[in-house]
């Protein structure tokens, strides 16, 4: 399998670590919605098909990547830096100080 890191270019899967399902939304840090937390930690869509997931280029630039990959064919259709991919949307963990 080959994943094209936006920084390092195409690299073999052996350089990457799978960091799991990218479809999960982390509740707000202070949320007491147990159901939301449980679902975030344990429940998975587990798509047979196009799957959004997080990989780390652990054997390269170490950036986390938001990857779209087909779980039936292993074909990767899109890669972006996870930090740009909006996975944080639901997390409103307020900084205690400093700028947002």
């Amino acid at each position, binding site marked *: 399998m080959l994943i094209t890191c936006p920084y390092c270019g195409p690299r073999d899967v052996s350089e990457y670590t799978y960091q799991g399902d990218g479809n999960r939304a982390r509740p707000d840090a202070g949320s007491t919605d147990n159901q939301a937390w449980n679902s975030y930690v344990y429940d998975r869509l587990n798509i047979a098909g196009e799957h959004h997931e997080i990989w780390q280029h652990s054997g390269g*630039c170490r950036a986390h990547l938001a990857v779209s990959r087909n779980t039936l064919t292993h074909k990767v259709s899109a890669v972006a830096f996870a930090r740009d991919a909006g996975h944080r949307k639901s997390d409103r963990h307020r900084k205690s100080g400093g700028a947002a």
Partner: protein
Amino acid sequence: MVDVLSPLKPVWKPGTHGNTTSGVGVVLTETQPGSIVQVAAWPGQEKKLIAAIKTVTRLALPDGAGGGVASDSKAAFGIAPGKFLIVDQNEGFAAILSGIMTADIGTVTDLSHGRTALRISGPKAEWVLSKFFAIDFSLPAFPVGSGISSVHHDVFAQIQRSGADQFDLYIFRSFARSFWMALGHASEEVGYEVS
């Protein structure tokens, strides 16, 4: 000044080794630069960082992933988004970089003791490195000056091409001896010289 102890000391065997019937395929050495420093910019501050590096090192880093440049005494190359490895023959370069790096640009991390710098050169350098890394080492794919981060199983490596057939590898110090032995082993086939 107290000497820095090389992790390779007990296994450092200068001379030629392996199958040298058709010459020496590669030369292996430890370059022991005085400073190996990581500088990292906050997102959006990369250009300022590159400018700051130029001020101190006079190395003009090209824009773009993995871009790098090397002179006799200094080298710099990109290792990750916004991150660069700066190498200088003299000690204490981290302090100099810290002096010019303001908190709004990024951070400086001294790795001078934490990384061991190995050099492999010679006509078979690409061939030997190909045994370790799933990287296309051919010149068009990996031009002189540029750098990459890669891994040989548990051994993480940052590699800069410092010549047409010369590569500098920065390896975690604790793994350096193991990796050095492996490098020698892989070079036996083509004959190698340690110097």
